[in-house]
């Protein structure tokens, strides 16, 4: 059974009661909320996720309105995990975004069974393209674009690198977070994709989420082998350019973008080293999704036929442009 097998009313009463328990990648989430219509958002954005039959949940989370005057005056939402509120409340209309960010916090602060890197990961023919990038670089837009053209979504925000299967990335197919102009870009580029509630005036500007495609969720237990490490940058008006990049510098950048590299110590180092050994590294600048996506498809298909350019961390290798 999947979440959307329940009607909105049934979901609402489940969420208001003992909680809706569903699988998100390797995790079981138990969601409770006293908000009026949270079920609608969940059904829209997580509808194809399997319902969990397990009596153990990884995260028990809640969304509620705080007590007091703010219930009526500019109402707010609070995210709690087992009674702990890691963050300040946000305006009520940002409830779904807050759920997403709260879940990110749960995973990134508590799941050291993986090396967790702030990066988007998509897959084609079993090979993973990893895109670490600071906010505003156009990583999520590119990720959404690729996914809309049939790449499998592993994650938009939290790359879970396996510590047990060297070089493998574990899927955490959740909604892709789109900001500001990206929302319209993706609406136009991929009108068939499901876009969720829009939250205005967040710390990141206007935010909306694109649901993970059902196919990505269905294949949520399949890992993908890291093969391309690309640092994207959206530059208005730029033509697509893919330039090889030093492995050592890429390693450092990835470590920097990791949430728990320091917690894991040598384990984390080894896991990251394997990813770098597997991957060809590139800097990418782009402005046009229709142009960049075929280029990336060509690049990953070509890389599937050949071993990694240079397994040594110290050499950038002599890559040909895709």
């Amino acid at each position, binding site marked *: 059974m999947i979440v959307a097998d329940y009607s909105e009313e049934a979901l609402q009463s489940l969420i208001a009661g003992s909680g809706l328990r569903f699988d998100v990648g390797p995790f*079981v989430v138990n969601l409770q909320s006293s908000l009026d219509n949270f079920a609608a958002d969940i059904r829209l954005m997580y509808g194809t996720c399997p319902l969990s039959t*397990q*009596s*153990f*949940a*990884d995260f*028990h989370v809640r969304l509620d309105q705080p007590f007091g005057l703010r219930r009526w005056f500019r109402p707010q939402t609070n*995210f709690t995990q*087992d*009674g*702990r509120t*890691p*963050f*300040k409340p946000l305006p009520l209309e940002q409830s779904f975004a*807050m759920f997403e*960010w*709260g879940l*990110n*916090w749960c995973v*990134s*602060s*508590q*799941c*050291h*069974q993986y090396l967790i890197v*702030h990066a988007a990961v998509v897959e084609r023919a079993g090979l993973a393209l990893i895109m670490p990038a*600071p*906010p505003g670089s156009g990583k999520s837009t590119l990720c959404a674009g690729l996914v809309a053209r049939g790449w499998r979504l592993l994650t938009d*925000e939290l790359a879970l690198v396996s510590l047990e299967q060297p070089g493998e990335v574990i899927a955490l197919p959740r909604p892709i977070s789109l900001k500001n102009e990206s929302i319209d870009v993706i609406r136009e580029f991929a009108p068939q994709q499901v876009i969720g509630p829009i939250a205005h005036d*967040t*710390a*990141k500007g206007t935010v909306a989420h694109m649901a993970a495609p059902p196919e990505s969720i269905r294949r949520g237990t399949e890992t993908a082998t890291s093969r391309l490490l690309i640092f994207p940058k959206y530059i208005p008006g730029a033509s697509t350019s893919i330039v090889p990049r030093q492995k050592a510098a890429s390693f450092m950048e990835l470590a*920097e*973008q990791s*949430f*728990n590299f*320091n*917690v*894991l*110590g040598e*384990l984390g180092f080894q896991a990251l080293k394997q990813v770098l050994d597997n991957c060809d590294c590139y800097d990418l600048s782009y402005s046009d999704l229709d142009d960049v996506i075929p280029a990336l498809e060509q690049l990953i298909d070509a890389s599937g036929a050949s071993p990694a350019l240079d397994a040594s961390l110290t050499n950038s290798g002599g890559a040909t442009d895709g």
Partner: protein
Amino acid sequence: MDKQATLLFSLLARPQKLADLDMPTWDVLIRQARNADLLGRVYELVAEHQLFDAVPLPVRPHLLSARRVARRHTAMVGFELGNLLGILAKLDTPVVVLKGAAYVLAGLPAAAGRVFSDIDLMVAKEHLDEAEKLLKIQAWVASADSYDDKYYRKWMHELPPLQHLKRHTLLDLHHAILPQTARLKPDSDKLFAAAVPVDGYPNAFVLCPQDMVLHSATHLFHDDEFKHGARDLVDLDTLLRYFGKDDAFWQSLVSRGETMDLSRPLYYALRFCQRLLDTPVPELVMAQAARLGRPVGPLAWLMDKLFERALPADHPMCVDSFTPLAKWLLYLRSHYLRMPFHLLIPHLLHKAFISPINARRMEKKAENRPTIEGLIAENKAP
């Protein structure tokens, strides 16, 4: 308290039971232990009793994660202690390492699986200024607001918390274990005199076993918030079980408590360790501790009710309708124990009315509490 509320304690007391927990019970246990900062402790017990194979697969990652965090904390504490003891070596005076950091330094079982919020050190009061100067040169600085800064320096048993500017590690530099204004007056000279040197560091000491227990007890039962109540009680339990293997420890514990003017907190420590964690306390020791430290009839009953509510894990399922009142009363009590009324009343008024205004002003300048977007933007987990 109902059974679910004390699940964590009852399993810590009888870890063999972890072998046959069902999944819903694991579900409750992991959540309570996580909030109490005791997940690493649960891992250590599972490992010690070789029960990992009996842990259901979905539960294991949580225990492994907690172990990794705890090991990381232990390594960091060791690293910081090495630095700090090096910096303070110039003082040419004993530095007593206290609480969690001492358990690490002395290699005690209480360190296993523990996480740390700060490092506590103690130097004799006359060396405090010099110590602060030495630390400041090495980027350990106080960041309290001006009221708190004065308050700490005038009345407390420690400097305002110091923080390393780059690594953000917190350091409490003590000259005593209770505020100068506190009703109980443990003599710091006696603590220094009985302290035990630590191999490998010429200037490092830890408290003697009895004093280590007394300090842990004092810290817990004079606490105002009980955020780490469960963890601190587990520390006490682990110390008592370890030191208690030696009869000599028990023989002098109660008399040491009396010498240090800490009979009351010692009584509470023994009582609640025994009640909640089944700590084996010899009957005679319990009786002696009660004779010296037990409050009179109705007060003893009330304190039982209050501590029973404050000590379990900080989790919504460990709360009953009296818990908020109990915690509030204990908050008042801790301040009453900390200073006489003529100092306490102005202090509490300041905390209630002036501090929030100042805090708000500060907050407008810079957001203190991390926001979720900020953390993601900065890409660092708390």
